[in-house]
C-alpha cells in the first residue's frame, strides 16, 4: 500500500505487493496485490491451481517469493512465523500421535511456557469439542475432528494471524458449521484470518474476498461489493415447475437461470423489467408460480458470470451416441443389499442397501471417511464386500468380467490419466482398453477434446493441464465407451463453479439417455441435482430419498432471517441461548432458525432481537435446504443417542 498512512500500515496484518512466484518454469502467482486488516476474515477463493496454496506457502514463510514484497505483521514472513498459525491443505498433524501429544509437540516447537500450556490446554480442547478425545490417535479422528485438532495446534501459541488452506474441504456439514462459528468468534477476539475455500456458500462469511484464477487476483472486495459490482438482480422463483420453466427463461432481461431443487434462480439485468418478463412468460405458458422474491445475487453468481464474461462458456456438445436410442429399461442397474465392509476392526460400510435405476442420478453424500469411496469400489467390483449381495447391470457374479467392464464407467477420485502421456494418447489408450470399434473411436475422442475446449492442444502432456481440466478429460475418458452404469467419485472437487455447472449438464445428458449414474460429492448444493440421494455418516446411511422428500420429512419450519452482515454472529449467539444449537445455523449471509411452532414463537423473536439492538431486515418461511435437513437429522440423532464419536 504505497499511499497508506503509517497508522493504516500498522493496522495491516498482511500486505502483498506485486507478488510473483514460479515453480520451475511454470508461473504460479502473477502480480498479486492485496492487504488484510487486523481482525478481518479474508477469503482466497478460486479453483484448484488458482494459486491459493502457493500464496499460503509464502505467507507462512515456508517458501520464498520469486518477486514482489510481502509483509506479515510488519515483518518478512519468515521472521513472523512465531506469530502465525498455519493449517495446511493436507492434514499435517502426526497420525500416529494422540490429540494431546500432537498439541504438546506443537506447544514445544512454539516455545509455549509450561505455565501457559497448563492454562490453555483444557479450554482450547473444550472450545473445539476435543476434550473427550484427548487420548485418541489423530489417525482415528473423523475429517472434521482432524481439522479441529489442526486448528487447536495452530491456536496453542495464540497467533495473531491464522492461515487456513481449505480447512473445511471434505468435512461434514455439522463440523463445518462448528468450525466457522469458531473462526467468527476468533475474528471478533482480534485474530486475523486468511482462509481459502472452494465453497462459495461458505465464502459469504468472509469480510472480504479475493477471487483468484490461474495465479492472478481477479477481483477483491466484500461479498456485498462484489455482488454490487455485478449490477444484476436475482429473482427466486418458488414452486415454479423448474424442469418445464428453465428452458423457457432466456433472452430479454434474463442473464442466467439455475435450478436448485424446486427453486429457480433467475439473474436479470433489471429487477423490475425482469420480474415483468418472468411473470408474463409463466402466464402465457400456464405454469404455476407460487412466489417470486427479489434478492441479491450470490457469490456463485458473481464467479460464474465473471468467468463467462471473461472466457466465454464451453459449448455443451451432445455425445456422439450410436444411431438409434438405447431402449428404455425398467430393471435395476445397481441392486446392493446389506453391504458391509470391514478393514480389520474398522467397519467402513455398515449394512448399506442401495437401488439405482437406469436413467437415474443417485447422489452419495458424506464427509471424508464416511465410506463413499469404499461403497463405490464395492459396487463396481474393485473391492469384495465383507457381507451383502450386489447385482450390477444384471450380473451378480464376476463383477470384474470383461463383458461387464465394457458396460461400466468409473472415474475415480484421483486422476486416472497418465501424466506422461498426451491428452490424445490417454484417450486413445482408454478407447483401446474399452474395445471401442474403430469406426466410433475418432468421433468420440474428438467429442471429448471439443467438449473440454482443448482443440489444437491434444498433444499437450496431461501433466501440464490444470486440475480442473484434467478432471474434465478424465470424465471424457470414463464415458468414451458410452457405459450403461457410470460411477463418478467426486468429479467436481477442485473444479471452478462454471466448469461444475458444465459437468452437471453432461451428467444430466447421460442420465436422460438412460445411463444409471452414481455420483459422490462434497457440495450439498450439488446434491439438489440428483434424483435421489443418500447421506452417509460413519459408514451408515442416515437419510435417503429424493431431495424433495428428504426436505419434506424434516420436522418444524425453517425461518430465514435477514440481518446486516456485521450483526449475524451476535444474532446467532443470542438465538442459541434461547433455542437448541442445531436449530440455529448460519447459511451464507443469512440465518436459519428451525421452529416447531412458528405461529407462537415468531412473535417473541422480533422483540428479542430488537432488545439486543439487532435490526431484523427480513423474515420469511422457507423450505429447508438439504444442509438444514442434514444438520437437523444428524444432531437430532446425536441428541437421542448421546455423544457419538
Amino acid at each position: 500500500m504505497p499511499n497508506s498512512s503509517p497508522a493504516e500500515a500498522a493496522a495491516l496484518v498482511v500486505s502483498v505487493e506485486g507478488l510473483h512466484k514460479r515453480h520451475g518454469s511454470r508461473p504460479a502467482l502473477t502480480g498479486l496485490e492485496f492487504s488484510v486488516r487486523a481482525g478481518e476474515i479474508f477469503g482466497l477463493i478460486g479453483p484448484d491451481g488458482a494459486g491459493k496454496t502457493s500464496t499460503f506457502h509464502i505467507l507462512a514463510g515456508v517458501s520464498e517469493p520469486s518477486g514482489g514484497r510481502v509483509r506479515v505483521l510488519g515483518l518478512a514472513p519468515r521472521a513472523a512465523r512465531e506469530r502465525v498459525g498455519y493449517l495446511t491443505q493436507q492434514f499435517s498433524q502426526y497420525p500416529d500421535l494422540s490429540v494431546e501429544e500432537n498439541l504438546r509437540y506443537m506447544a514445544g516447537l512454539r516455545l509455549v511456557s509450561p505455565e501457559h500450556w497448563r492454562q490453555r490446554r483444557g479450554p482450547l480442547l473444550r472450545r473445539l469439542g476435543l476434550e473427550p478425545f484427548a487420548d485418541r490417535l489423530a489417525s482415528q479422528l473423523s475429517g472434521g475432528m482432524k481439522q479441529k485438532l489442526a486448528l487447536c495446534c495452530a491456536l496453542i501459541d495464540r497467533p495473531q494471524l491464522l492461515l487456513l488452506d481449505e480447512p473445511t474441504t471434505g468435512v461434514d456439514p455439522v463440523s463445518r458449521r462448528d468450525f466457522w462459528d469458531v473462526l467468527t468468534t476468533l475474528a471478533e477476539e482480534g485474530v486475523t484470518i486468511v482462509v481459502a475455500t472452494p465453497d462459495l456458500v461458505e465464502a459469504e462469511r468472509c469480510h472480504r474476498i479475493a477471487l483468484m484464477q490461474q495465479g492472478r487476483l481477479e477481483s477483491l472486495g466484500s461479498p456485498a461489493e462484489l455482488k454490487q459490482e455485478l449490477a444484476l438482480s436475482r429473482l427466486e422463483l418458488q414452486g415454479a415447475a423448474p424442469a418445464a420453466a428453465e428452458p423457457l427463461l432466456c433472452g430479454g432481461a434474463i442473464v442466467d437461470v439455475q435450478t436448485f431443487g424446486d427453486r429457480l434462480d433467475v439473474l436479470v439485468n433489471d429487477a423490475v423489467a425482469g420480474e415483468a418478463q418472468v411473470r408474463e412468460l409463466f402466464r402465457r405458458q400456464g405454469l404455476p408460480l407460487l412466489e417470486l422474491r427479489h434478492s441479491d445475487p450470490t457469490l456463485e453468481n458473481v464467479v460464474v458470470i465473471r468467468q463467462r464474461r471473461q472466457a466465454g462458456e464451453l459449448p455443451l456438445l451432445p455425445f456422439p451416441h450410436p444411431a438409434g436410442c438405447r431402449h428404455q429399461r425398467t430393471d435395476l442397474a445397481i441392486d446392493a443389499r446389506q453391504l458391509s465392509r470391514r478393514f480389520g476392526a474398522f467397519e467402513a460400510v455398515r449394512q448399506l442397501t442401495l437401488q439405482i435405476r437406469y436413467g437415474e442420478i443417485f447422489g452419495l453424500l458424506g464427509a471424508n471417511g464416511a465410506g463413499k469411496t469404499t461403497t463405490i469400489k464395492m459396487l463396481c467390483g474393485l473391492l469384495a464386500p465383507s457381507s451383502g449381495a450386489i447385482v450390477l447391470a444384471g450380473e451378480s457374479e464376476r463383477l470384474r468380467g470383461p463383458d461387464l467392464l465394457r458396460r461400466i464407467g468409473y472415474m475415480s477420485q484421483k486422476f486416472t490419466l497418465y501424466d506422461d502421456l498426451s491428452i490424445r494418447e490417454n484417450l486413445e489408450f482408454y478407447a483401446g482398453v474399452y474395445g471401442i470399434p474403430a469406426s466410433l473411436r475418432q468421433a468420440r475422442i474428438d467429442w471429448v477434446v471439443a467438449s473440454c475446449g482443448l482443440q489444437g492442444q491434444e498433444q499437450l502432456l496431461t501433466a501440464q493441464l490444470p486440475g480442473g481440466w484434467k478432471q474434465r478429460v478424465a470424465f471424457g475418458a470414463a464415458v468414451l465407451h458410452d457405459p450403461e452404469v457410470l460411477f463418478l467419485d467426486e468429479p467436481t472437487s477442485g473444479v471452478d463453479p462454471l466448469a461444475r455447472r458444465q459437468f452437471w449438464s453432461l451428467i444430466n445428458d447421460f442420465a436422460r439417455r438412460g445411463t444409471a449414474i452414481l455420483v459422490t460429492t462434497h457440495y450439498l448444493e450439488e446434491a439438489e441435482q440428483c434424483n435421489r440421494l443418500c447421506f452417509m455418516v460413519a459408514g451408515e446411511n442416515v437419510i435417503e430419498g429424493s431431495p424433495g422428500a428428504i426436505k419434506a420429512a424434516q420436522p418444524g419450519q425453517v425461518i430465514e432471517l435477514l440481518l446486516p452482515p456485521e450483526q449475524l454472529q451476535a444474532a446467532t449467539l443470542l438465538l442459541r441461548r434461547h433455542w437448541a444449537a442445531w436449530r440455529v445455523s448460519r447459511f451464507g449471509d443469512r440465518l436459519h432458525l428451525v421452529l416447531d411452532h412458528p405461529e407462537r414463537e415468531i412473535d417473541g423473536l422480533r422483540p428479542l432481537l430488537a432488545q439486543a439492538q439487532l435490526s431484523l431486515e427480513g423474515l420469511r418461511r422457507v423450505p429447508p435446504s438439504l444442509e438444514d435437513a442434514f444438520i437437523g437429522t444428524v444432531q437430532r440423532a446425536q441428541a437421542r443417542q448421546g455423544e457419538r464419536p
Partner: protein
Amino acid sequence: MRRVRILAQCRKELLQFRRDRLTLGLAFLLPLLTLLIFGFAIRLETKVIPIVVQDFDRSPLSAAYTDRLFATDQFRPAPWRGGGDPVAGAIDPGLARAAVIIPSEFSRRLKAGQPVEVQVLVDGTDANNARVIRNSIQGITAFFGADKELIREPPPVRALTRLWFNPGRKESLYIVPGVYAVVLWIFPSLLAAIAMVKEKDKGTILQVYASGISAAELLLGKALAFLLVGASVAVVVMGLGGQIFQLSVVADPTPLLVGTTLYLAAAVLFGLLLGVRSANQNAAVQGVSLVGFLSALLLSGFIYPLSNIPPPLSLVSALIPARYFIVISRDAFVRGTGWAGVWLDVLMILVLGALLYGATLRSLGSLQLGDGGEGGP
C-alpha cells in the same frame, strides 16, 4: 538454539518410534537376527576340510604320517574309495579339496636319510582356503619330520610364532566385534532416515517449516531421539552378543563407551542426511541399506583386510566410520590395549560425525520449500 524445541522434537520422535511396530522391529529384532546370522554363519576359515591320501608306500611310517594329517580338526578323510587317479576321482567331483600322494619309497628313502617328495594337489577355486590348506599340510609335514627326528640338522634360523590375543584362533572373537559395527551402523541410520522422510511423505514437514524451528534444532532433536534408541540397541546387542559368543570387555571400557556413542551419532546423522535427500520412504530405505551395507561390510575391514584395498578405494574406505569403530570394538573385546591403541580411531569418528552433521544441516537448508514445486527442499 532453544533447548525446549530440541526436547519437544526428541520426545515426539520417541513417541512415534514407540508406536510403530515396523520401527520397533527394525530397532531390536533385526539387529539381533543379524548378529546371530553373522556370528554363527560366517566362517572365513574352513575347518574339517575333506582331503584324500593316496598311500603307495603302505609302511608304518606312511601310516603314521597319514594319522598326523588327520590328528587336528583341520582335515578329515574324504569319502573316496581309493584306487585310480585321486584328481579325477575325488577332487574333480568335489569330494575332496586336496589330495596327498605318498610315493612308494617314502619309508625307505627317509630311513636312508634321503629327501623324499610328497605330492600335494590342492583345489585352488577358493584361493584363500587353498593357501590355508597348503600352509597346514606344510606345517604338519615339518612337524612330522621334526617329531620323528628324521631331519637330522635343524635349519639354522627358525621362526617361532605364537598367536597373541586370540591364541585359540577362535573366529567369533574376530567376527562378532565386527558385526557390532555393521549392526550399529545400519539400523540406527535406517530408523533415522525413515523418521526424516516420513515427514515429507505425510506432509507434516510443512507444519514443521511453519513453526519457526531452526534446522539445527530439528536436526538435533531427531538425532538425540535416535541416539537414545541406538544406545539401547547397542546395550541389547552387545549384552546378548557377549552372552552368546562369550565375549567380554578385556580392557578399559571408556574408549568403547565414547566410541560407541560417537559412532551411533554418526550413524544417525548419516540416516538423517539420506532422509533429507530422498524423495520418499522407499528411496531412503534402499539408499541407507545399500550404501550402509556396502560400506560397513566391504570397505570397513570387517571381512577383507584394509591393507588389501587398492588406492582409490582405500581413500573411500578412510571416510567410513565403521572401519574405525571395528578397530575400537576389536580392541575392547580382543586386544585390550585401551586408549593408547585407539585414540586416533575415536577422533576420526568424531571428525566424520561432525562432517555428516554439517552436510545434513546444509541439506536441510533454510527449512523451506524449493522452487521445484510441492516436493521437499
